[in-house]
């Protein structure tokens, strides 16, 4: 019993600590789904002065496949939250073929000597309107994930990670999971899914360093605070796969690196 009590107390503590984080990245359903989570921003604030920045836009060629509409008639609570029938978020395209929800991270090149600044506030994933918000996001190794249910109906959230311990827990009512889930090993990507609502899925990239970002609705991303060096940067998309590029950073310069996926 002691173990559990402790974990409960611990989670209480975390809850209070993370309350700030919540505001910054608990996105409402209508808002842009791919809002970059706090940790991506946090290091940028602290160490952008010392270090270079990689920014870019992500586009795709061809026509994006249609996102299937979701029939939520089983869940009135969710259905009510949408004026028109909602769709899945497999490919979220912005104006001029901009591609959102792409996870961009530094795959290799970060010097072993590099010491990452302490992770910022823990990210929160919200189950709202029978969809996950955010749909794609990053988390630092050692951070825990706050799981929130704003629907008040049963969701279960199942993480099928390889490097990270899989979990499968449920929230029957409007609540925040008392025990936040830790991520202990780098892994791109861990899939999150709800088995009660087959269409619900989200992806989380677990990284040891703060050098990752998620492209916004306009397809743009920015990774900052990179020490000088040559990096392999990878862009991951759930439908279009991955693309890599090599970027060399000298001093505090700011490089631009765009990615273009082919919609097939």
């Amino acid at each position: 019993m002691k173990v559990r009590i402790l974990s409960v107390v611990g989670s209480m503590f975390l809850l209070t600590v993370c309350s700030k984080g919540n505001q910054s990245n608990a996105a409402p359903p209508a808002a842009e789904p791919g809002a970059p989570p706090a940790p991506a921003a946090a290091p940028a604030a602290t160490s952008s002065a010392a270090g270079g920045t990689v920014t870019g836009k992500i586009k795709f060629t061809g026509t994006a496949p249609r996102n299937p509409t979701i029939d939520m008639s089983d869940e009135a609570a969710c259905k009510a939250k949408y004026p028109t029938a909602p769709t899945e978020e497999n490919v979220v395209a912005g104006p001029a073929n901009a591609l959102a929800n792409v996870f961009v991270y530094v795959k290799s090149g970060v010097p072993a000597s590099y010491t990452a600044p302490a992770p910022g506030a823990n990210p929160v994933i919200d189950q709202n309107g029978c969809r996950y918000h955010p749909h794609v996001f990053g988390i630092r190794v050692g951070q825990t994930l706050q799981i929130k249910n704003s629907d008040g109906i049963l969701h279960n959230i199942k993480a099928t990670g390889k490097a990270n311990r899989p979990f499968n827990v449920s929230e029957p009512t409007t609540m925040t999971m008392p025990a936040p889930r830790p991520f202990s090993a780098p892994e791109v990507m861990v899939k999150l899914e709800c088995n009660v609502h087959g269409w619900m899925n989200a992806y989380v990239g677990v990284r040891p360093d703060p050098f990752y970002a998620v492209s916004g609705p306009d397809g743009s991303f920015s990774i900052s605070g990179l020490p000088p060096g040559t990096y392999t940067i990878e862009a991951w998309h759930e439908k279009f796969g991955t693309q890599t590029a090599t970027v060399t950073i000298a001093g505090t310069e700011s490089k631009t690196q765009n990615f273009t996926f082919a919609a097939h």
Partner: protein
Amino acid sequence: MTHVAHAKPGAHGGGDAHHAPMSFWQKYIFSTDHKIIGIQFLFVSLFFLLVGGLLAMQIRWQLGFPGKPMPGGSILPQTMAPGGVILPEYYIQLVTMHGTFMVFFAIMPLLVGVYANFLIPLKIGAHDMAFPRINMWSFWLALLAGLIMFAGFFVPDGAPRAGWTMYAPLSARPDLSGVGVAQKLWSVSIVVLGLSSVMGSVNYITTVINHRAPGMTWFRIPLSVWALFITAILGVLALPVLQGAAIMLLFDQSLGTHFFDPVAGGQALLWQHLFWFFGHPEVYILILPAMGMVSEIIANGSRKPIFGYHSMVFAIIGIAFLGWIVWGHHMFMSGMNPTLGSTFMVSTLLIAVPSAIKVFNWMGTMWRGNLRFHVPMLNAVGFVSMFTIGGLSGIFMAATPVDIPLHDTQFIVAHIHYVLFGGSLFALFGAITFWYPKMFGRMMSEPLGKVHFWLTFITYNMTFFPMHIIGMGGQMRRIYDPTIYDFLKPQQPLNVFISYSAFALFAVQLLFAFNFLWSLKFGKKAPQNPWDDNGLEWSLPNPAPHGNWEKTPNVYRGPYEFSSPEAEARGTDFLPQSLKLPTDHDPLPAPLPATH
């Protein structure tokens, strides 16, 4: 338990009699005396009975008031019931562990662990079990198994979540059940328990065959011992099968084997076949001893010989035999070949025959009797009437077409509780009261016992009878919230009613617990033969000394010679088995066994 201290250390032939006087530890903790071991089993399994009951209360809360915070539930860890609201995964842990504890760690040890140990040597005139030390180990292993199972609540992800039947692949794959450690604990615990109960059964069988007092011929053996003997045989043959299955399950969970995982060519139904091949004999392990002890009590309470002793014995054997060829009736809906279903249906229906024989013979025993309604008798009669309902409701599910709408609904829940609670537990209330003086040298309070019986009888029926109806209404087993189904909404009031009755039923049991504990110290001292019974055990002081008899008793007649002319001649209505009348000849001791 302090009263067993009267056991005379020097007593002849008993387990450890030769190094007397014994320390407290030898006498009560690491005792090899079958009576002490029985009492140890009694206390442990009553504890697990309480645990199982508490789990049941939480189940009933959730079913009656889905999603409402449970009173006092807030003390539960957040991972089970945040703010007292039971989580679906915790609910499944509840149903799983309620079944597991009640079947494996409450009813089974109460019937077999307690009364096979306590009664067999006393009733057949043996000084102790054949293998006292193995007997001691069987208790300690059972306790260990129970603790391993109990630990499941305190490991990450909580207790097992696959139902007490542990259907694979749900039980075999952590990614599907959402629980890792505790599933393994379940398997380990069952393997240990199997070991314990095989040790016990080896003891019981050997003792009954080899250690009967002179004159205790097979057809003078009391029915309780007959039932326990047959039960032991079932145990020896059934438990190892479950052990084998549990080991395969454990390997699936930990070594990456694929016995029950279709992904790699395993077979999901294999688990069900193995489990129920054990599981149905197990059902009879859970009822036969109860039948045996009820036979004793009814004969005693009616002051009449048991009606049709021989057919009672053959009915026990018949039930035990049929128990091996009916396991498929748990799998009518499982996708098993329907033709097999037909055969299993017939064999299952036939079990009604020996069961009917027993019920009618009990009635025949009471017919034109001189019924004394002491507490054991009340509970025994309660057993007969409730077991009848349980047996009859079984026929609905044995008839395969009717089973289709009833299978895996609350109807089966009602059925199993009419057999295990209305059956086994009523028998146990009777048995505990009946042999309490033999165990502790004091009587349990008669008035309290009667109040407890009547209140239990009423609240019990209020709790479980309506389950038949909501089962017919189609409410599936093990669902967390019936109210999300339109066809179940109308009967929710009945669920609420059941829940209230269940809480009352639980409260009434505290009365029994009080009576049991209070009488240990303050119960009135028991006369040597408080129930005017014929059994050999009553020829001993209460409680019986270590090693039982100074000199092995001779047996002159069957166990149920109530109201016989000889008895009348003595101005009583009973005739102890070991009482030598002038007309009796001493039985010859059988020749010593040829070793080779």
